[in-house]
């Protein structure tokens, strides 16, 4: 029931939004819907409704595909993240003006539907459906409301991910015909009879798709451009929630289905991820555009998560779990600030900013806190996650962990660079007449900051929530 609501509310309200007349209606209606979803998500997390987390009905009988959705620990967490993200985005974008607002908000809600579906579906074909459904609205959003190079960039992003998902489709089919009784259900995927060589082959079909989505090092080039060109509200979703799709898929669909292959290639992948971390961090140091900087830093973080998960160390995996949530929160916070800066000052170039701390002290403080969370300072949420992930990495291999650790320092370098160039020093031409943060975004940011601190001081609930997912993955693994 809960699961069904999580999909239906955004879907229906999205379709309704298409036909809203005025901008106010569209905004308020979508905000309302997203808050509704948030409530449902909380209900799901609260654990009072654990009896109603699953929903299952026939869909395409001839194929053995069913419309079956459900929530496990990770699912709960990510649905919550998804719900929070959209509410925050709608709220913080409340006084932004978009042309064709009805379409904009409708597409946003459809995207939420797709994301929810991805996190919920326990049927491979359904999963693929929602995987694409999340992509299409993103495509339209980016290419009609984005920056000046939007069309080409978004198209690249689309084709890139689309190739990946098509390969995944082939992989799904491949496994499907190996499952007992030809079904797409998650369980029967887990029971698929695959020889080692078949696993190794199918593994890559899936992994490339997820690697592009996350993105992992050599497949990442679509991301900075896409983030730079997309409208910031969409970028928040892309980087806050959508990249989690990749990780989620790895955890839900890749690891337990191909345990042996995952073991075989874990070294390759971890190497890739760590390379990517350092690579992205180094590039971030030289970025002059806030959005690109955040994009690269998020590439680095995602790389760490992926690597930590492939160590198949419980602590590390647990760290990944909460880090998925935390990174979502932090990066959204950063985007909100970036958005404010861009809307207010009309530039994202670090070289043109400066001295905001004097003009906008509150904004400055909030940005600083978010930035510190981004570099995983203790008592911010991501410290716990990164600590555990590095620990897992360390148990996996000391040297890998040591090398990856360098990215901690680099992260400090580029983040402080950003803070200094944006906030400190004397005001520049652009920032001379800057005002402080307005109430709406301020509230949003404060909410986020509270989440950041609370989870940083007392992460335990989140850890408990996602414990079962890790256990299932590991059990599958130690078979």
């Amino acid at each position: 029931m809960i699961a069904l609501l999580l999909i239906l509310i955004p879907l229906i309200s999205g379709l309704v939004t298409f036909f809203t007349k005025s901008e106010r209606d569209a905004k308020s209606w979508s905000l309302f819907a997203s808050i509704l979803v948030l409530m449902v998500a909380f209900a799901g997390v609260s654990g009072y409704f654990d009896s109603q987390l699953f929903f299952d009905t026939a869909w395409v009988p001839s194929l053995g595909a069913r419309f079956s959705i459900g929530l496990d620990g990770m699912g709960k967490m990510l649905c919550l993240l998804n719900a929070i993200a959209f509410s925050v985005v709608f709220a913080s974008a409340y006084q932004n003006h978009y042309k064709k607002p009805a379409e904009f908000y409708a597409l946003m809600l459809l995207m939420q539907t797709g994301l929810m579906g991805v996190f919920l579906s326990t049927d491979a074909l359904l999963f693929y459906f929602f995987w694409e459904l999340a992509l299409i609205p993103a495509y339209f959003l980016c290419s009609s409301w984005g920056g000046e190079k939007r069309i080409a960039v978004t198209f690249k992003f689309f084709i890139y991910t689309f190739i990946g998902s098509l390969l995944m489709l082939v992989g799904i089919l491949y496994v499907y015909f190996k499952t007992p009784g030809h079904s797409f259900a998650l369980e029967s995927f887990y029971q698929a009879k695959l020889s080692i060589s078949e696993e190794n082959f199918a593994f890559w079909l899936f992994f490339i798709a997820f690697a592009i989505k996350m993105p992992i090092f050599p497949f990442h080039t679509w991301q900075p451009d896409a983030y730079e060109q997309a409208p910031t509200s969409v970028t928040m979703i892309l980087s806050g929630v959508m990249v989690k799709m990749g990780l989620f898929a790895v955890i839900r669909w890749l690891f337990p289905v191909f345990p042996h292959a995952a073991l075989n290639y874990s070294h390759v992948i971890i190497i890739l991820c760590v390379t990517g971390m350092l690579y992205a961090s180094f590039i971030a140091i030289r970025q002059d555009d806030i959005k690109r900087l955040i994009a690269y830093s998020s590439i680095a973080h995602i790389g760490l998560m992926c690597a930590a998960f492939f160590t198949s160390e419980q602590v590390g995996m647990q760290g990944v779990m909460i880090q998925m949530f935390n990174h979502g929160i932090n990066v959204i916070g950063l985007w909100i600030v970036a958005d404010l800066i861009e809307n207010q000052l009309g530039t994202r170039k670090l070289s043109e900013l400066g001295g905001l701390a004097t003009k906008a002290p509150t904004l400055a403080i909030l940005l600083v806190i978010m930035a510190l969370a981004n570099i995983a300072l203790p008592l911010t949420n991501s410290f716990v996650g990164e600590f555990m992930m590095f620990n897992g990495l360390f148990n996996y291999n000391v040297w890998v962990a040591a090398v990856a650790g360098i990215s901690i320092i680099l992260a400090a370098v580029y983040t402080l660079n950003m803070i200094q160039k944006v906030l400190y020093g004397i005001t520049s031409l652009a920032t001379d007449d800057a005002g402080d943060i307005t109430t709406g975004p301020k509230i949003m940011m404060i909410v986020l900051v509270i989440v950041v601190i609370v989870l940083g001081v007392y992460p335990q609930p989140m850890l408990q929530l996602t414990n079962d997912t890790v256990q299932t993955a590991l059990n599958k693994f130690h078979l």
Partner: protein
Amino acid sequence: MNNLVYLVPLFPLLGFLINGLFRKSLSKRTIGIIGSGTILLSFIVSLVLFFDVKANGGSVVTYFNFIDVVSFQIPFAFQVDQLSVIFLLIITGIGFLIHVYSTSYMYEESSDHLGRYFAYLNLFVFSMLLLVLGANYVIMFIGWEGVGLCSYLLIGFWFKNDNYNYAAKKAFIMNRIGDLGFLLAVFLLLNKLGTATYSEVFEKASTSLSTMDVTAITLLLFVGAMGKSAQIPLYTWLPDAMAGPTPVSALIHAATMVTAGIYMIARSNVLYSLSPFTQDVVAVVGLCTAILSATIALYQNDIKKVLAYSTVSQLGFMFLALGVGAYTTGVFHVMTHAFFKALMFLGAGSVIHAMNGQQDITKMGGLVKKLPVTTWTFVIGVLAISGFPFTSGFVSKDEILIAVYAHSPVLFWFAAFAAILTAVYMFRLMFLVFFGGFRGTHEQEHHLHESPSAITIPLIILAILSLVGGFVQLPKIFGGTDFFNQFLAPVVPAINHESAATTTAEYYLFGGTIVGLVIIFAATRKLFAVNQFEDSYKGIRKILADKWYIDELYDAVIVKPLNSFSGFLKSVIEKSGIDGLVNSVGRFVNYASRQLRLLQSGQVSSYILFMVLSITVLFLVFWNQEYIIQFLQKTF
């Protein structure tokens, strides 16, 4: 009583929150009162704790599970024992004095900024307390990074000036390098022992850790200490950190934060005792730092820089002590050093205040007439640091030297040399600032005045402390007993150097010190107390004045290459390399399309020709497909 411990960090935290959130609406007075009052409260609590611990030993108070996964627990717990209590007293006590001092020193700032200042300061105290109270390495690490953050924020307090910001960034990043070492050490502990809680670690250490592991762990921890306590090679941030307000330099970069490294090593003395190699490394590094920075201090003209380098060199002394296994002595020197170095910084602050912002000692001189209190308290500080008999510095430094002597005479002579240098540059500073004729401008001379009581009272208190602070640990020969060592004994075993050899050494040292000081006094008087300066030093002096060009070296060897490397990645590898590859696929498709459509020539006969040819090809493929299949199987 121990369950009160949470109050100690709580008060500063509250102060931080109040000052931070409502700073716009509060008046400067209230801000100051809240800022220093909270510290006073936690100082009182700390005193209570101190006596409680003195009476009935230390204990661990666990609050909640910070991280609790199967096979992996990190409790959020405080450990109240002799060591932490000592540090609590130092932090809160001196912290309180400095807060009081700040209320007056920072009074020109607008209430907004003043609130920010006190908020940061309280936050610093909070994290410092967390650092010393934590019952395991993770909690310590939380405090460890927290203090780094606060020092970053406070160094860059006047954020309009970009040089200050660079200094702040430098400090934070160098600390981060150390922190990475610390973190790896913690991981190694967790990996080998499955726990980071002190008690468990220390009891398991001797049994279930190989020498290799211990050495690795201790070395990595020491890397952390290098960063935090400004040892070679990570010391260069500390002199730059003087960009911050002077009270901050006093509190963070002299009294408390920089001694975190010493605390950490003293805390994990069990581990260090297990690995002699690391101990030697610590000793040598400490000694080198002591000498190097002392030499640099000789020719610095910025009053705060001189003090900064002397701090570095004193820290070197402390590490030397730890390295030779005299942990208690190290801690003891931390305490005494906290007294007199805080004193001198605050004095310097008062001077700068009087000279309104002038920090160049070549422009000062003869301030004794206008600033008596500042002068004489400062003189006490100088005597203490240069080890004038029976001052606190004398006691602690003597003890260090003797411990070193007991360990190895060679090190001792170097250490003694460093001690002499200390005396030299300190006297130089004293003469140039307070005695001789005034070399500043007239306005400055006119402006000179003694600072208000909020500044002088802390100076006086600290002066007294630096005078008498040594008596808790007076060597037997002077009829004292080592209360300090006895107090710390349950946590940190003291080495007994009351052997015959060392007692005689004590005499020599005592004599040597007096004689040496007299000579140095005269010498410096002659050498430095002059009224005209050549505008730029020559030869060896220049090298010293330019700090052995270490900063330039780092810049050339590390910073610049890294920058250009990342630039290379950004513009070459990323743009033309990976992204270029991706785009070229698309371009190739376009090109292929343009070529392929020429096949559609529009001529029927050519179409039919193609058809006929492809039919023939199909036939050939068809009749020879066995061979083709075999070929394919061979190739793939």
